[in-house]
């Protein structure tokens, strides 16, 4: 759908993105994560023809989005800093973009309805809350039913309710089979939505894959928590012997990290103590763990 081939972008003396090879697959939700200035936004903008590659190519369905407006008709875009014309109403904004995208008649009203903005259609957008503006931005992005959505921090600066509402919308859109590529600093959002994660550091793609695959590739440990009242010392020792690390017992609760594949062994060793354990939970490594691991000096990993 969107293909980056040896893509690089340089601003003055700064390499914003270096040597990126990445295919955004049709129908997937791909999240770009990484520190500020790591190249996420540049990648998204290149797909929309907003920035020109310094090296390599970026194509959308085989077309160069910088030169070919028809490539951009396949994408809907929600920018990081969403601006609307001064004093324009929501309906005017959506209708204007509907004209540019040659969306069918009534599409503007339908999308405002879909995003719960019908009642505010005549209101000036500069009176909208952050959440309403994001929903309006998503309505604009969905005009003419694009094959893919490119979203730059869709829930940035939103309160928790608005952020969760945007997350629900994205989950629904992903459920429709739409390709979504988005940049985010909200790792919980990324974990909840993304099929694959691309971790950028200093303009380089450091890791790419499904969170579980990445965690396995990085050999990230699972976390175990278990109520061990009365047998704390024995339980801690058994866990250590079975290969657990970072073993602690606080207020009768044992916590430890278990290397990949070692969960069954640790649970078995603890079970052998014959004590009545409570509230066992094993948490697999998630996006946050992957992110922490990748940001530490680590070998390049593309799953």
């Amino acid at each position, binding site marked *: 759908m969107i293909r980056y081939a040896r893509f690089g972008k340089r601003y003055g003396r700064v390499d914003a993105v270096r040597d990126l090879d990445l295919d955004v697959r049709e129908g997937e939700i791909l999240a770009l994560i990484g520190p500020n200035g790591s190249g996420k936004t540049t990648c998204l*903008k290149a797909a929309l023809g*907003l920035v020109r590659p310094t090296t390599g190519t970026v194509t959308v369905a085989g077309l160069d989005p910088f030169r070919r*407006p028809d490539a*951009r008709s396949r994408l809907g*875009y929600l920018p990081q800093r969403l*601006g609307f014309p*001064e004093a324009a109403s929501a309906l005017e904004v959506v209708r204007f973009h509907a004209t*540019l995208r040659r969306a069918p008649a009534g599409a503007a009203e339908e999308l405002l309805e879909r995003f719960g903005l019908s009642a505010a259609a005549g209101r000036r957008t500069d009176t909208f809350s952050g959440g309403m503006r994001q929903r309006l931005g998503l309505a604009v992005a969905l005009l003419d039913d694009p094959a893919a959505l490119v979203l730059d921090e869709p829930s940035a600066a939103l309160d928790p309710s608005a952020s969760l509402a945007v997350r629900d919308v994205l989950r629904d859109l992903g459920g429709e089979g739409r390709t979504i590529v988005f940049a985010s600093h909200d790792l919980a959002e990324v974990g909840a939505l993304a099929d694959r994660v691309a971790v950028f550091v200093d303009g380089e793609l450091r890791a790419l894959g499904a969170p579980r695959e990445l965690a396995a590739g990085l050999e990230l440990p699972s976390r175990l928590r278990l109520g061990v009242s009365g047998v704390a010392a024995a339980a801690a020792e058994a866990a250590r012997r079975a290969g657990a690390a970072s073993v602690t017992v606080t207020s009768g609760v044992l916590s430890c990290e278990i290397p990949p594949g070692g969960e069954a062994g640790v649970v078995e060793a603890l079970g052998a103590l014959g004590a009545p354990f409570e509230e066992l939970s094993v948490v697999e490594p998630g996006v946050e763990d992957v992110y922490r691991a990748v940001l530490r000096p680590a070998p390049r990993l593309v799953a």
Partner: protein
Amino acid sequence: MASRAVYAVARRELRSALRGRLIASFGALFALLAVGIALAGLGGSGLVLVQDFTRTAASLLNLSLYAFPLLGLILGAAAFSGAGGDLELLVAQPIRRSTVLAGRLLGLLAAISAVAVVGFGAAGVLVAVRVGTAGLGGYAFVAGASLLAGAIGLGLGALLGMVLRGGSAAVGWALAVWLFFAVLFDLALIGALQVVGDARPGLGVAAALALNPIDALRTLALVRLDAELLLGPGGATLFGVYGRGAGFLVLSAATLLWLVGPGALAGALFSRRDL
């Protein structure tokens, strides 16, 4: 489709500009001053009289040739520097960048025209009703020259917006450019004349008019109003030595270059600029 999209962008830009504070306050102030200038004639008994079109045009000339380029510069710089944040979303749509550029410039030019129509129109109606339509052609010429000055300012502002990405930086530089052409250029020219110490300024001073679109348009308008006595040393030399036809030709060509040049350069930059 391209012309439909240009029209859509221009209409949106015009609507947005007309709703904005800048155009509203600028338009109201200019209309107020234009009507005030039309009323500024004094009768023998000390009564306030309405001036005729020629006097009104001559009196309005300096004000409008300062005001319209300033308005154009600010609008152009703000529209293309990314201030407001909707430029990115617009360029990401399936339309050509040239469509965005043309639509924005046309919409903003229409907004500047609206200011001119309201200001010159209000004063013009007053003069026509009270004094008659004698000298209307010269008045219309001044209005047209003001609009041209606004369009030139718009092109220069757009160019600044392309080069300077930050909105406030672009608008700040737009003000500096306006100050240069409106004030500093003439001061520099006067200083140069003092240094040269030549009572009869030569072709160089006359040619310097072409380097300043405000001076070029002011000179053209004064000649059109048969007010050559008000010409500066450059204008007097150009028209006195080389004649009316040659003077008009040179300054019209310079004005055309000022109109097309910055806009074309802005277009070339915009077609490859990263947003």
